[in-house]
């Protein structure tokens, strides 16, 4: 029994930190742009397949590929998503959501067309190899490294929001956009910045978890699902709620997994979120502002 509890605790902490990375971009866009970026799954797919495209298709090294992939992500996020979809359909949200999803589908299928699952895509981003042993739990160093990176990135984001001037501006925008405009905030530039910032966590996440998470063109859907569940539970657009909800969902996943059966992980998380929504209408931190 003690082994099971140790497993649950260790996996909750490790995977909670990884879920932080998965869901933070989605929450950021929810909180700042007040739009549900259903094309968020495309970020994961482009991160993995973009890097692979530059590495194997053009024969570049790992670091240049990653840099080029970042640039590609930024271009797609701003040109395709922000300018092409969000700005045009701001008052017709159903079109906005459907087009974002269609773009995600197109990207995923395109990646599948170029590099189907059988073509052996793998990103050599492993930082450390080997297994660690924490108490009675065997866990790979790579997972611990991914979790640590998750915590560091989240910490940097929180620091940015709390301590820097840009963070203050973004927080004010998410609370009351009209007041922010009246104060002279350059809203468009800040939206660009928010879109760029939202790319960083999922890209880093994919790069870190590539060694132990299978890369597959349609992984964006399940990752988006997890991100949305965490965002819903934590209160859409609220970073504090997001952080708490990441660990909460990880806890639910792994306690169900170790105490009962791994196959009920997703369903248990969904049921708990549903119950939570019925009890407290808006999720954990229902302020719907970024912090």
């Amino acid at each position, binding site marked *: 029994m003690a082994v099971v509890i140790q497993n649950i605790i260790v996996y909750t902490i490790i995977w909670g930190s990884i879920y932080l990375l998965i869901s933070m971009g989605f929450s950021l866009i929810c909180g700042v742009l007040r739009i*549900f970026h*259903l094309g968020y799954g495309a970020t994961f797919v482009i991160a993995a397949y973009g890097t692979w495209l530059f590495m194997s298709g053009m024969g570049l090294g790992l670091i240049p590929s990653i840099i080029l992939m970042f640039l590609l992500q930024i271009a797609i996020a701003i040109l395709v998503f922000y300018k092409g979809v969000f700005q045009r359909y701001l008052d*017709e*949200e*159903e*079109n906005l*959501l*459907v*087009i974002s*999803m*269609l*773009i*995600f*589908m*197109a*990207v995923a*299928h*395109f990646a*599948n*067309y170029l590099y189907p699952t059988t073509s052996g895509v793998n990103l050599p981003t492993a930082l450390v190899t080997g297994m660690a042993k924490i108490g009675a739990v065997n866990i790979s160093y790579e997972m611990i490294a991914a979790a640590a990176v998750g915590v560091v990135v989240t910490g940097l984001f929180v620091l940015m929001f709390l301590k820097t001037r840009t963070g203050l501006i973004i927080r004010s925008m998410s609370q009351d956009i009209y007041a922010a405009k009246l104060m002279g905030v350059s809203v468009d530039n800040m939206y660009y910045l928010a879109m760029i910032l939202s790319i960083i966590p999922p890209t880093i996440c994919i790069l870190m978890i590539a060694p132990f998470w299978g890369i597959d063109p349609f992984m964006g*859907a*399940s990752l988006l*699902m997890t991100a*949305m*569940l965490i*965002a*819903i539970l934590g209160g*859409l657009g609220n970073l504090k709620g997001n952080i708490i909800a990441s660990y909460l969902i990880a806890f639910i996943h792994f306690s169900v997994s170790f105490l009962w059966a791994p*196959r*009920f992980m*997703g*369903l248990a998380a*969904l049921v708990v*979120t*549903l119950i939570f*929504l*019925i009890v407290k*209408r*808006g*999720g954990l931190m229902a302020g719907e502002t970024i912090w």
Partner: protein
Amino acid sequence: MVKFELKRDRILLRWGLEKLEWCIEPRYWRNPIIGVALLLILPLFFYSFPHLLTMLTTANLLACLAIPLSLQILGTARVNFGPQLYLGIGGYTAALLNLHFGWSPFFTLIATVIVCGSVALLLSPTTWIAKGLYFSLLTLILPLTFLDLTYQFGDLFRGEVGLFGMSPLLDLGRVRWNYMAYYYLSLFMMLLFILIADKIGRSRFGVTLAAINENEDVARMMGIDVSKYKVFYYVFPSILTGIVGWFIVHTFRSFAGITYLPLDYMLKVLIIVIIGGRAFVYGAVPGAYFVAIIEEVLRGFGHINQWVFPLVLIAMILILPRGEGLWGLYHKRHPRDYFPKLHVRRE
């Protein structure tokens, strides 16, 4: 002799002192008859191309999915991003009961209605308790979780392969005749759904439906019990969707969750609601035929169709007039009809 005049919205035939007028207006009752007659005659041209017949049947079924979805969006005042959940639930119920217990299609229909109704009733509180966008995102997640479940219980649901070999609704002996029969059955179901939605829309409940869609709080102040209507407009379309699942099981005789539950299928149905435009019921028919035909045409181009199809659909949304869709290109607007606007609500 016979003079033939074309006016802006009508065709006039004159001979001697007599005059025959034909209004080109969809609400004029003769025009739907033309449309239905066209649909009835259509398969006779495709008798020797069974895969085209399947395409038309799929088009009818997609329309059958879009009509309850639009009813649900209007009635619950929330956008439902996961209508295919009840398709999956209904389909699997019918398939499993038929395969393992040997129930005939009639009894599986009753079971489908009961199961879908109970699940919908269970989930209906989310329509008024959860805030608008939370509900929409939840409905997005639910079918994917159900798909996950079908994989986990692979021995029961047969995962990716799916269930096959269910008993057919009717068997006319020759395969070609079966395809024709299935087309006519699906056409009949689609017309039935359109009739139901039309009757609801033109009745006193249709006015209430419009009020709930426009402004919930004001509607509540007018004396409308919004929660009760939301439950009805969530459960009833879900049951209709489940019936479509039952139909798929017993005509195509195979059912795999992977075909119907993921996002691709949902996007097809949602696109029909959006392309079909604000006429919300009749627009589903041209929308569904359009999507099914495009999919079939693109399939001819090989593997590239997977990612070109979403791009074509995006182009359709961008090109067609905003809010009006395909139906707006044709329909003469009359203010007495209520043209609903889909609101994606946050509250």
